[in-house]
């Protein structure tokens, strides 16, 4: 039986030593969970990865939740998630408190003026990569376009877009594709 402390510590390492966002944790997660401890097979790891990406919430936290639960139930899930996010929270807090002293400083403002457009680019770039993975075709490209326009121009909350997509997808799958399969 996997120890709770071990779960906490593994995810603590993963959370502390990955820079650049949740997805950057994937290699370290694989190293810890599959290679080092053998808690998951490579295939299980991939499946849980896909699930964590699809489910709402933060990818890294979802991974920790499911893996922790798998190995030690609810307590394992809690230990894993807390381990994963504890250090990031502390670091950001330290930064937030420090930032308040330097905010408005011309040096910091100058640096961020250069950085801000790059952030937008970093958010925008994956859109194209994701479009390919999501199998965007000329028949379904209206979905992301409409979703984007609704949120950007009409101030629709993304939550409604997601709810509408799930309901729409469910109805489409049940009635349209269902009929095609049986006819």
């Amino acid at each position, binding site marked *: 039986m996997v120890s709770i402390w071990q779960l906490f510590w593994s995810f603590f390492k993963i959370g502390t030593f990955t820079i650049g966002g949740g997805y950057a944790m994937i290699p370290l997660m694989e190293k810890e969970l599959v290679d080092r401890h053998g808690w998951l097979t490579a295939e299980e790891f991939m499946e849980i990865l896909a699930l964590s990406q699809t489910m709402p919430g933060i990818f890294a936290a979802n991974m920790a939740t499911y893996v922790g639960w798998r190995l030690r139930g609810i307590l394992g899930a809690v230990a894993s998630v807390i381990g994963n996010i504890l250090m990031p929270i502390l670091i950001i807090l330290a930064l937030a408190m420090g930032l308040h002293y330097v905010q408005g400083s011309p040096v910091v403002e100058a640096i961020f003026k250069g950085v801000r457009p790059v952030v937008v680019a970093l958010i*925008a770039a994956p859109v194209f990569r994701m479009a390919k993975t999501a199998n965007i075709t000329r028949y379904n490209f209206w979905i992301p376009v409409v979703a984007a326009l609704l949120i950007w121009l009409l101030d629709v909350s993304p939550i409604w877009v997601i709810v509408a997509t799930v309901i729409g997808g469910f109805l489409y799958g049940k009635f349209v594709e269902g009929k095609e399969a049986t006819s």
Partner: protein
Amino acid sequence: MLALIQNEVVEKNGWMTSAEFTDIVATSQITPGPIGINVATYAGYTAVINAGYDPAFAVFGAFLSSFSVILLPFIAMLVVGRYLMRHKDNPIVQTVLSYLKLAVVGLIAAAALLLVNPETFGTFADNPLQLFLSIALFVAAFFASLKWKTSPILLIVLAGVVGFVVYYL
């Protein structure tokens, strides 16, 4: 996730300005941890501070935000996640998931579009240099990330240096 946080924190509640949001996204790229957690922590702290409370209370706000942002997914993973794992081959499940993936592309595009504003890029009237340089940086970073998969950390550090040199010196 970013799109939703942006919607709630900046657009709907005005707890942070667009610039503050972009700044924390930038900082999150160079610090450990998932961006969602970092942004939630920072937003929690900043929102409380901006509202005029003292830092101790803001720390509580930061922890509260982080806790809240993972609470529902935590429950969802354990309830819905297990269901999905068992039924992942169900065609309806797969259809819904495929449509969700498409919608998410739109969500992220919207997040980027919402950041195309004077706070991020500057205006022609105020500072044409900033506007043109920002557009140039955007285009360069966009292609570097898309075509060469350049590390976001590198891009942000370089952009910071450029900003420092151009705007401060």
